């Protein structure tokens, strides 16, 4: 079976929806610039690309049609490179990586561009025409439950206090701010041409966040709840991409390999507590890899909400010292379709940087799923 490796990771700056500098950038243009940069940076031969797999959680409007095909063509990839848009909500672009790894194992291609994008400014969450199935919505309301409500449900069921969430959010901002200040994002960031010039910097990080400033916020989803805008990931515009190829191809072409893909998993859960999804998926992926949590050097666990991230860390017995060391989505932002590619790429890059052996990237998915990827140093 052919081994798949991550041989490149870039992302756009992440900026807040509506008021950020990427608000006026079309998502296809945004993804195209990131894909172009990935190809340029890795030095992969465009004609070797088998498929362009673009994750997107609300693929309509400017993100509609087969977004991936358009991005491939706009990025100047040869017509022979195929393209598929992939939707698994927040797990979309991590699924791109899994699909690529599976295809490589199957011998169905050697080089895959695995990207993800979301303009939460230009295509609203829920899309332009939310039309739930009335009969099923009555039978199983949780299937359509809003994400904020699931974060409250997790906080209640796992007894995650507001204070704890706020401390977590503060740390996320501090880590992201420190990483930015130390230039630790420089290698992954691709400047994006916007309507008013180049967008070069992340826009969601708030180094000034304190426990006191967060304590003053009102609950965002439930008047009696414990989840606020400050302990939720913000609506974000952004794109990310990783290059996934066979180990042989990477060696033959001297590509800068960050990590190998060791194991992957998907695991469904109760939609009402979708935030706990990473627990099941991580356990499955670790079992497949023959590893234990203790063997992980680096963990990227998406911070959709502080409540679910804390609950997952507790259940998996992960230490804050190993999780999201450059900050997470609460500080950086969470452009739904792009996050999977970001955290796989980030975990791979951190593994190389921190000289660790094993890394985990995992996230929760609306509707009740978790997805996980285990990486190994090469």
């Amino acid at each position, binding site marked *: 079976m052919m081994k798949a490796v991550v041989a490149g990771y870039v992302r756009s700056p992440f900026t807040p929806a509506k008021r950020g500098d990427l608000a006026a950038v079309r998502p296809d243009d945004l993804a195209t610039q990131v894909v172009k940069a990935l190809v340029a940076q890795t030095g992969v031969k465009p004609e070797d690309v088998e498929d362009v797999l673009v994750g997107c959680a609300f693929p309509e*409007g400017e993100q509609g049609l087969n977004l991936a095909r358009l991005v491939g063509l706009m990025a100047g990839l040869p017509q022979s490179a195929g393209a598929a848009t992939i939707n698994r909500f927040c797990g979309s672009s991590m699924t791109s990586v899994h699909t690529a790894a599976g295809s490589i194992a199957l011998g169905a291609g050697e080089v895959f561009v695995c990207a993800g994008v979301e303009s939460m400014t230009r295509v609203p969450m829920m899309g*332009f*025409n*939310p*039309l*739930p*199935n*009335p009969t099923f*919505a*009555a039978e199983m309301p949780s299937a*359509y439950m*809003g994400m904020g*409500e699931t974060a409250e449900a997790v906080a209640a069921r796992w007894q995650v206090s507001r204070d704890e969430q706020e401390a977590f959010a503060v740390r996320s901002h501090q880590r992201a701010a420190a990483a930015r200040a130390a230039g630790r994002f420089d290698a992954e960031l691709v400047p994006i041409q916007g309507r008013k010039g180049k967008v070069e910097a992340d826009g969601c990080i708030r180094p000034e966040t304190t426990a006191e400033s967060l304590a003053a916020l009102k*609950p*965002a*989803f*439930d*008047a009696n*709840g414990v989840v606020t805008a400050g302990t939720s990931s913000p609506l974000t515009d952004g794109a990310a991409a990783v290059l996934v190829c066979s180990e042989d191809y990477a060696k033959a072409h001297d590509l800068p390999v960050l990590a190998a893909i060791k194991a992957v998993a998907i695991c469904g859960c109760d939609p009402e507590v979708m935030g706990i999804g990473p627990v099941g998926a991580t356990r499955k992926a670790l079992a497949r890899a023959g590893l234990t949590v203790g063997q992980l050097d680096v963990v990227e666990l998406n911070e959709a909400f502080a409540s679910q991230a804390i609950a997952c860390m507790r259940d998996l017995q992960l230490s804050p010292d190993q999780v999201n060391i450059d900050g997470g989505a609460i500080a950086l932002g969470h452009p739904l379709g792009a996050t999977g590619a970001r955290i796989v790429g980030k975990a791979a890059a951190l593994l190389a940087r921190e000289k660790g052996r094993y890394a985990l990237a995992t996230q929760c998915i609306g509707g009740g799923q978790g997805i996980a990827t285990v990486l190994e140093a090469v």
Partner: protein
Amino acid sequence: MAEIRKVVVVGAGVMGAGIAAHVANAGVPVTLLDIVPAGAPNRNALAEGAVERMLKADPAPLMTKAAAKLITPGNTEDHFDAAVGDADWIVEVVTERLDVKQALYRRIEAARKAGSVVSSNTSTLPLASLVDGLPESFARDFLITHFFNPPRYMRLLEIVVGPLTRPEAVDTVSRFADMSLGKSLVRCKDRPGFIANRLGVFWLQAAVVEAFARGLAIEDVDAVIGKPMGIPKTGVFGLLDLVGLDLMPHVNASLAAALPKDDPFHAFDRPLPVVQKLIADGYTGRKGKGGFYRLNREAGKRKEALDLATGEFRPARKAEVAAVAESGRSLGKLLDHDSPLGAYAWRVMGATLAYAAALVGDAADDIEAIDEAMRLGYNWRWGPFELIDRLGADWLIARLERDGQAVPEMLRLAAGRSFYRVENGRRQALGRDGQYHDIVRPDGVLLLEDIKRAGTPVIKNGSAALWDLGDGVACFEFTGKMNTIDQQVLDLLVKTVRRVKKDFKALVIYNEGHNFSVGANLGLALFACNIAAWTEVEASVTQGQEAYRALKYAPFPVVGAPSGLALGGGCEILLHCDAIQAHAETYMGLVEVGVGLIPAWGGCKEMLHRWSTLGRLPKGPMPAVAKVFETVSTATVAKSAAEAKELLYLRPTDGITMNRNRLLADAKARALAMAESYVPPEPPIYVLPGPSAETAMAMAVAGFRRLGKATPYDEVVSGALARILSGGDTDVTETLDEEAVLALEREQLVRLVRQPGTLARLESMLMTGKPLRN
């Protein structure tokens, strides 16, 4: 005549910013300049700060947020020459210092282009001093335009013209102020305080000084010198809190310095230590910690009033004034009432009315100018001469004489008669020559008040009337309390459609109330519900739907011409008109959910059609439905006609008239233009998403409920609305006609009126005037 296409306002204080905002409301680009603050990193900080405040202020100086884009903030160093050189009208609104103003005028004169006009918003400096020593070329293009605060809402504009001012310059600015800014212009002589403040400040000062002297309770004062006289209920002390106590000493000092020694103002101009202390302590009025009234937050937001005798605050109490209670509607009885407050009322108003009469020939040439200035500048319902007519000129003369007070010449002239009279259906005013003169409306001003005075209605009943505006245009007027709509209005509407079809070319729906209509008569609705007259309720819904539909499909054009509130059923009738000519200050909204109802006279149907056809929305079955749901479920009221366009209560093609007095003439002209080749509209076909949309909206409301933004009963009412807007049990593969949507409106309204939650909301609105949040 030159057109004003670009304006510069120099001075970004409250008035300057307000004037700039209102120029932007008129759709005209305006540059707002102020000085560069010492040491400020941002050289435009003052003007930019003013624009930021505009966007937050309430009442809003801007009619839409988008209007702010027409304002370019700048500073008087970097942008002065370019902006002034490009402007057709330069408005000076800087500090009231002659040297500062004149220095600025010299800079303006050097920079401005030929043919431009310069005006000052001064309220205290005479025009003669302002132009003294300046080149004649400047004086020829200079006048005073005195706005009232807030400039968007106060309709008065006082104009003072110098002997050298070019008539064309006056015409250019007057025309712009009238047509584009919607102001009523009152020509004043170049005398201190012009008209409104000369009299208004006298009145306020007299009222305050006398109240102190007599140790009266300020609640009582405001109850006497208020509503019984057609003066806004803020009265005296409430008004001072509103305009700012700190303004008083400045205005008084400048008037005292400028007025001749024998002016009656001096008798009331004396220092008030209690007021000085209030100002020093930060009690400058509502903009400060409070004024004569304050909210004591330490005592649980208790309203407190100042005790004039002690200078201490005490809990406010409800005014109970025997002089008011026992006088009925008779102002004379009130001023003659044998009580401290009766004596006080006479002292203040007797002096004020006499002073007004003394101002004829001094501040103004005629009584109408003074009455208009007080009506529009101080929101008095009646001007002083109208008040004198209510008292009787002879009564006032006799009372003044009895008190040994001087009787002004103009008042003597009215002895044995009145200041105003109606002759052959025309209103006339007494002139200084002792003759009555017709009050002539300017071109383009048509008032229903004049039509009504001169004739009788075509048809009428207890709640509405139809008038003949001439040229084949009829005017439908609501006449009930608050212009509510009841069965009689609907009856007459149906008769009107038949009558207009037979005898007229077009119909205008218009009235001259404060509000176009506050909607259906809720008292009747509540009564019907209380006696469980469900059949009658449904019949009245059907009647309204049919009457409005008859209007929409009538073989003649119907133009709605609203001003003020147009709510609920009053908004729905406008939604059925072929076109609207709206006064800029029109506040439309479908607010039914506030009383536990939903729009059922075709409001849902019309809004769905508008958003489906005119809305700039993404494709698909849901966006139009969601937009209407959002607007109606939150009872959104447009805060201007311009905002009503954003909400599609008005169509993009509907017209907006800035000047209230021009509304009817504009609407009539529009109706006549449409009558030329009028074809009634085609009935719309609806494609609605059905139950999926209803589910989506229910889910959204449940989210608001959890967040505490929607109440339990909101969920019920929103549910009924969602049912209508989604099209009931329809499917996107099917089409619905108007009748099907109307049937859903009826079905849901009849369902809601049977709910105790709706009854509770109706009762609360009728008893307290406030919506119940059950």
